[in-house]
């Protein structure tokens, strides 16, 4: 594994990172290195310059804000999985972060790098989409916020501008009394999600007052299932209601269902309802 020659820059601050990106055409941001470095070793990616943001203090840390949790882009999967504030306010994210890769990946890989890579089989984009998270980015033109659902624009493509840096992920707290679950079909080799189903259920007076269902691994981007959510809304969350909602997810899959040597598109589509059903059951069991 021998990467091509590249130039290495270490940024001391977000503004310096933005400047370095602007000055070095074709530069790539390096954080935990768990998506970029493997591509570079295979020479599938040969950036002329790397801008290392890994030591920028302001990008680290997890803090509870009013009704939300703000997670610095450099927070690792392991930090998120073991964070008390994440577990209390957005247990769905803690659960998914604990299922990313293996311990080595979780100790190095960051939430910012993960979502910026926009791998459709990644775990975090699925739950962040289900949780209506938003991403704060900083670029030459200042700061802006992008909704999780709008962030990925295609396979490995994002709405992030060329010289922008993702700084923080803000996740609204799960409603009190809600239940959530992330159920994952791990690829036996890569540990990416062949399919990941996330569900958040809230009830009021025995009826579902809000439901969020997102699926990753099936299409080029993690996406909410509007049909499943519609089927759940106002339902009694009985087995039959969950069955109907799970069955509805198929209608939301477009023509672009992913396929590889391990799992065909037909199989992935067929597993959608199965995993959504399991996520809904688990979320229902956790309500309270």
């Amino acid at each position, binding site marked *: 594994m021998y990467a091509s020659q590249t130039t290495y820059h270490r940024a001391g601050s977000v503004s310096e990172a933005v400047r370095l990106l602007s000055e070095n055409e074709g530069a790539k941001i390096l954080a935990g290195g768990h998506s970029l470095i493997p591509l570079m070793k295979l020479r599938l990616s040969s950036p002329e310059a790397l801008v290392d943001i890994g030591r920028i203090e302001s990008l680290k840390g997890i803090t509870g804000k009013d009704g939300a949790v703000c997670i610095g882009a450099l927070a690792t999967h392991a930090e998120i999985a073991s964070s008390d504030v994440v577990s209390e306010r957005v247990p769905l994210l803690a659960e998914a972060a604990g299922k990313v890769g293996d311990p080595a990946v979780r100790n190095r890989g960051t939430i910012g790098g993960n979502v910026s890579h926009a791998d459709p089989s990644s775990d975090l984009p699925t739950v962040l989409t289900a949780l209506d998270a938003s991403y704060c980015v900083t670029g030459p033109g200042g700061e802006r916020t992008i909704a999780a659902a709008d962030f990925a624009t295609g396979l490995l493509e994002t709405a992030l501008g060329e010289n922008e840096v993702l700084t923080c992920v803000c996740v609204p707290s799960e409603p009190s009394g809600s239940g959530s679950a992330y159920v994952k*079909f791990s690829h036996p080799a890569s540990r990416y999600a062949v399919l990941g189903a996330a569900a958040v259920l809230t009830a009021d007076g025995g009826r579902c007052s809000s439901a969020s269902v997102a699926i990753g691994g099936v299409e080029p981007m993690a996406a909410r299932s509007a049909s499943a959510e519609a089927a759940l809304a106002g339902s009694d969350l009985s087995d039959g209601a969950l069955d109907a909602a799970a069955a509805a997810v198929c209608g939301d899959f477009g023509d672009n269902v992913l396929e590889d*040597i391990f799992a065909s598109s037909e199989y992935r589509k067929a*597993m959608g309802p199965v995993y959504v059903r399991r996520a809904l059951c688990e979320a229902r069991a956790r309500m309270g």
Partner: protein
Amino acid sequence: MTMRVFGSGIRRREDPRLITGRASYTDDIKLQGMAHAAILRSPYAHARIRSVDTSGVEGQPGVLAVFTGEDTDGVLNGIPCAWLIPESDLKTPDHPAIAKDRVRYVGDAVAVVVAESRYEAEDALERIEVDYEPLEVVVSPREAAQDGAPQIHDDVPNNVAFTWALAGGDTDEAFSNADVTVGDTIMLQRLIANAMEPRSAIAQWVGPTGDLTLWSTSQNPHIARFLTSVVTGVPEHKVRVIAPEVGGGFGSKIPYYPDEAVTAFCSMKLGIPVKWTETRSEDYQITTQGRDHVEEVEMAATSDGKITGLRTTVYAGLGAYLSTASPGIPTILHGLMYSGPYDIPNISGTIYGVFNNGAPVDAYRGAGRPEATMLIERLVDLLAAKLDVDPVEVRRKNFIPAFEDGHDVATGITYDSGDYNATLDICLDAADYASLRARQADARKEGRHVGIGVGTYVEICGLGPSQVAGAVGFQGGLWESAIVRFHPTGKVNVMVGSSPHGQGEETTFAQIVAGEVGVDVDDVEVIHGDTDITPMGWGTYGSRTTAVSGAAVAVATRKIKEKSKALAAHLLEAAAEDIEYEGGRFFVRGSPDQHKTIQDIALMANVAWDMPEGMEPGLEASAFYDPPNFTYPFGAHLAVVEVDAQTGHVELQQYYAVDDCGVQINPMIVEGQVHGGVVQGAGPALWEGAVYDDDGQLLTGSMLDYALPRADLLPEIEVLSNTTPSPHHPLGVKGIGEAGTIASTAAVYNAVMDALRPLGVSGVDMPLTPEKVWRAINQSQNGG
């Protein structure tokens, strides 16, 4: 007194350096002035080379030289095959170290760049322009053997390198008289060995002396020396091969590869040391793979379940070229094992060794025997299902009864000793088979799909009598030698020609010496892996090291003991026949207080102040051990699985391994070998497999796609054993390195089929991935 260590599970003496990162592997070695080679590899599985233009490399930073097939042609001899099986019409097409006019698999070498750093060499590779004319590709060994298939070697019609037939009894009559027959087509997919340490070589040519030293990740440095001499033309006594620490092999480090020859060529051309280390991606593409069988198999039996015949047609993929031992794997180590633990009077097989456009195939843990065990155990389970009897009962009905000294089977070989019912009994007791079946019945009532699978086996190891090696076309001997040398202080060096690389013989061989003459294990150092220091040996593979090389250590140590007795008699002024030995002390019978310790003897022998008339000084002995027969370990394994019928996921829930490897020198090491072996056999049943597409591109080119078994996917493995000593071995030892792998693929596969039988599924190709299982269930439920 000295602790009795032979037979005790003492900790491996290798481990402290291995697990603290203090071991030195080939790639860790840095020589003064050493350059680095990178090899350009064909991106096509089959193509004609129109031209190779290296002009873009000249003058690039750090580049010292670039060579192509034009440069090596006529300088390096072809890469040889060393197992020329007789009566098979074997073809041995040329295998150039660097392809000159044609490439035959993705990864075939096309050019080599030597530079001051590996990075510079890799950068330079990108500047070589090769004009390829793609040719048609064939991947399946069965398709490759059909008329009209793309021709991979011009002088090998239909790509059939050999046709090897086996016949014992009258199989045709057995099938025409059979009450029942069962059959199947079994695909044993290609497997990638995935040794933790990738292959590596450093060549150091010293022009003025004509000495070539090769550091190499080899399981058999003496064979590597011989073949280096053959390929480079450097005389054998001027070649030194050193296999330093070697990080696993599983068979993939037996062969002599083009890469070692190319590295030597570069060093000889440039007069400086040159290192080449494969990347993991290269390892996947070029290092020999295992299995690749398509087996058309059938079994004949009476209506009460007595097996009367077994018949096979096997297409064994060889890859693009013959590797060092490849013809022997699907024949001698496979076909001859078709009787398994059963009394089967009529057995026949036709095995086609077929070239296909993939990496060369050679020995991989179990080498031929997992492929045999899989087909036998699969057919036995199909027979049980057809007769609607418990698969355990069919096995019991057909087991060869216990024997202590020799049993002939229809394939023409003679098993040494066996007690197949005993290992099965221990296994079924440990697993509580009756309860398992009851639990399965309860689960089925709840709509859950639990399966129980049994895999019983006999394997062949301790390779082997050299006369037989010659008779079956192995181009070498299969004996081993050892030197046991006592120093004046009573400390011992043991030099062996075998080359352990993770199996633990630095510990077990010391235990053998300790057990024979009562020295402390810590006083024995086992030295291996350097052809200038160690005596000749044929290497570590085929579960033969403890069985053959260990026997040489025992025999040599017994010579030490005899000499020690004679010297003790002289020193104690007694007759040699009156000297007794116990626990490291030699004494006159009846007077144990008057004794000489082995350390006393070692000192006297080394200083030689008072030796008996005619006795040479020194306390050193060597032994050349050529085994009188192979050894035949055996056992019974049982797996419990549950299948999620909604998704096709298989969960391996319980596993029991009962192996009889004869006398155990170190039960902890035996257990470790069984653990690793079981996992390595369960892998291909459930997860592992190399996949090439129709163009011969390796789709499972990295660990992202190639699913190795992982600890969290495996249950606790219950390891039990029984001891039936080998009657012909000095220590009663048989061998354990491959047993787990040989049994577990069949046990796990049979368990999954047992789970799926009520759903109407009778067969699925391995690996049993969720989608394949899900599709099989769906097809069956939808009326097939």
